[in-house]
């Protein structure tokens, strides 16, 4: 029994870690948000260079968080990794493709003899900036809406549509979360530009686009949240392992886990407060409130997806193939070993914060963009 409890504890612990990583990933996608506006936001070439360099100094954090998110999911919930990646093949390949073209675009875009020209690499940034958040949001939405797969007695996945994940794009709710994540990334991108670039005209342009992106974010986010609260959810009985459909399951989860509800509301308020002080008070610190809010909101949404007897990766083809944190996790030993490694996370966050601060202590200026430093 002791073993059982500690395994269950570790399954919850690792779901919290994975959810936190997801929260930070969505926050760090302000990089993608900025990229999605590189053709529309700048008023001139200098603006574009400044935006690209502001985002280009942070893209690796987003990238590394995505890779670590994948690795942590693999290590802690390998059945999710094998089921989702091996089944929803095309969605994940599209996401990977978009991140691959991002990784080289910054370094290559302004280098002489890059063969394909600056515009091609800027297009790569735009594609990643638009598709990356949208597809990740759509993929995560299936945590609540379900996918069509079957798991064999040997725990091997058989996807039940020939579209291998692309069918997720046919669900309005999935699309709503995809667009919500995209517009949230754009809002955070604008807030980051205001925070880090020393150019009045550009920051004014960023401020003027804030309202429209915020409205679009709110429309999609509210649609998804309301539909989530009103929809049936995938309830899982830990004792029997049986999955059933339950009316208002996610609403129940919020009510039955008030701490999660508070975190969620704090997150939403944080995002709105960050936007508000940026628009009304012209503060440059909006990104920190909005960023913290993003982390909290995404974190709490994923807790709602996986905690309180809920299947976090449901199958609408065969309910009993649905994945829960306890039927898809690694063994007790592996989770425990990984837990010791996770104790280093605060230390890692501390050095990231220190290095981030060191680079961001001076704003990006026109002079710097014209110097012979490492400029993208």
């Amino acid at each position: 029994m002791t073993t059982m409890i500690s395994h269950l504890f570790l399954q919850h612990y690792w779901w919290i870690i994975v959810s936190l990583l997801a929260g930070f990933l969505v926050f760090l996608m302000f990089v993608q948000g900025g990229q999605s506006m590189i053709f529309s936001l700048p008023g001139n070439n200098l603006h574009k260079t400044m935006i690209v360099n502001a985002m280009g100094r942070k893209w690796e954090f987003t990238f590394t968080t995505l890779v670590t998110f994948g690795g942590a999911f693999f290590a802690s919930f390998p059945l999710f990794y094998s089921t989702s990646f091996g089944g929803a093949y095309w969605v994940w390949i599209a996401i990977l493709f978009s991140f691959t073209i991002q990784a080289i675009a910054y370094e290559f875009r302004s280098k002489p003899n890059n063969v394909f020209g600056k515009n091609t690499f800027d297009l790569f940034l735009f594609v990643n900036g638009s598709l990356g958040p949208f597809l990740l949001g759509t993929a995560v939405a299936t945590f609540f809406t379900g996918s069509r797969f079957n798991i064999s007695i040997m725990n091997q996945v058989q996807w039940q549509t020939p579209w291998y994940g692309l069918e997720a794009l046919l669900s309005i709710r999935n699309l709503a979360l995809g667009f919500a994540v995209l517009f949230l990334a754009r809002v955070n991108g604008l807030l980051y530009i205001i925070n880090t670039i020393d150019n009045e005209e550009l920051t004014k342009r960023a401020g003027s686009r804030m309202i429209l992106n915020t409205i679009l974010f709110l429309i999609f986010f509210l649609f998804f949240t309301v539909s989530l609260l009103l929809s049936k959810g995938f309830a899982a009985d830990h004792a029997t392992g049986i999955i059933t459909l339950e009316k208002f399951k996610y609403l129940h989860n919020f009510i039955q886990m008030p701490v999660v509800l508070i975190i969620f509301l704090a997150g939403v308020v944080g995002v709105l407060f960050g936007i508000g002080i940026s628009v009304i008070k012209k503060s440059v610190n909006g990104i920190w409130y909005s960023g913290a809010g993003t982390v909290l909101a995404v974190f709490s949404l994923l807790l709602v997806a996986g905690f309180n007897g809920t299947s976090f990766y449901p199958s609408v083809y065969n309910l009993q193939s649905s994945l829960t944190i306890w039927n898809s996790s690694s063994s007790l030993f592996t989770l425990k070993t990984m837990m010791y490694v996770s104790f280093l996370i605060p230390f890692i966050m501390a050095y990231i914060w220190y290095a981030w601060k060191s680079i961001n202590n001076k704003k990006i200026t026109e002079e710097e963009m014209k110097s012979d430093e490492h400029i993208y």
Partner: protein
Amino acid sequence: MIDNIDLTLVDWSRAQFALTAIYHWLFVPLTLGLSFILAIMETIYYKTGKEEWKRITRFWMTLFGINFAIGVATGIILEFEFGTNWSNYSWFVGDIFGAPLAIEGILAFFLESTFVAVMFFGWNKVSKKFHLISTWLVAIGGSLSAVWILVANAWMQNPVGMIFNPETARNEMVDFWAILFNQVAVDKFLHTISSSFLLASMFVLSISSWFLIRKREMFLAKRSILIAGVFGLLSSLMAAYTGDESARTISEVQPVKFAAMEALYDGKSNAGLVAIGLLKDSEKMIGEKSVKDFIFKIEIPDLLSVLTAGDKDGYVQGINDHVSGNENKGIMSVSDKKLRGQYASDILLDFKNGKMNYSSEQLDSINSIFRDKNFQKDYFRYFGYSSINNPEDVIPNVPITFYSFHLMVMLGFLFILIFAMALYFLFKGKISENKWFLWIALLSMPLPYIASELGWILTEVGRQPWIIQDLMPVSKAVSNISSGSVITTFILFAVLFTVLLISEVSIMVRQIKTGPKH
């Protein structure tokens, strides 16, 4: 485990993974090695305060940045392809394999990506000391990431530290330290890291030689050759030593791969080491596979026995010993292993199919079978053989394995010679005068890349048909998706990687021609 395996799907999935791995490995060794060379150069700058060293460091750092980006780009696909293309494998070993990947992300990637930003953008923003520390941390982060991915790969060559759980139908970790300090992992890390260091050293030596041929940037070129020569010579000697250790370990844990590396069909005592050889198909057959024979070979008598067994009378196992068995040497035949693997597989299938009808006592009893050490040793370790149709299927592609190994070894000795000569000419003060040597050094740039790729081809092709040695054949590991999807993504990635490579090489050549700008 999966009925009606589509061989087209397996082949294309293998092709896609091989394509990604080969492209990825074009960039990673340079990142691993050049980061240390940068750290050494910047340390000299920090210690001496001479601006020339800062200029040298920044020039190589520019080239590092171009290479780093494309390595990262191809790396993310590799990590996720374990899931997208090998999902059955991901589940079968995810409890073990996932942990090193996650630790790689948590410990190494963040270290690398955090401080690489300081390294590139921090010259005028942070103190000299903090910048130097950042450069060293990038180098350490790179090598740390190599540790974990190589631990994962080593486990596929020599699965240790786990137990099979019939309830979850997967292998589960029971000894983290056994996995981390798996002899294959230790050998693999040391050999990979040293060969990466020598590759980067050759890169620096080659480009510096070009500057000397062109009589440009003489100071930069000579100082760079000094660093690359010393670092390269030490690394190539270490690569030779660790390569020898690796081969010895392979002879113990993957004897069929080792026999294929030497194209040794009949095991023998006083076995000679083939230094050079050319293979052809012979008349003899093992099942449907033809036995390879030598058109010619230069062999060093007894050396293979000495190197593997430490004694010239030592017996070296051949391919036939494993296919047909050799009772005198205590080697089991494939057929016997198949019977044992089938026994383990039948118990598992019986258990899984009847699980719902078993009493808890019966379930406990079946669980205890899989936890029994003798069952693991005598039966479960041959689990994968239950899926082997013909005994000869366990023989990897002998010519590819043989040539990859021998060409890699030959190139390895050549590198020692080149680095030693570079240092000799440099210390004699005659490096600029010996243009013939500078040309050799310049033209040698692709050779460590070839050797490095050959090393991985040997590792992976030599392990076939297994994805996990003796436990899971590649055909059972593949994701159950349509082959059309994989063919499409293969073409997509082939085009993308090639386009990126063309751009990278073009940028790199231009940056080298331009020279240092600071």
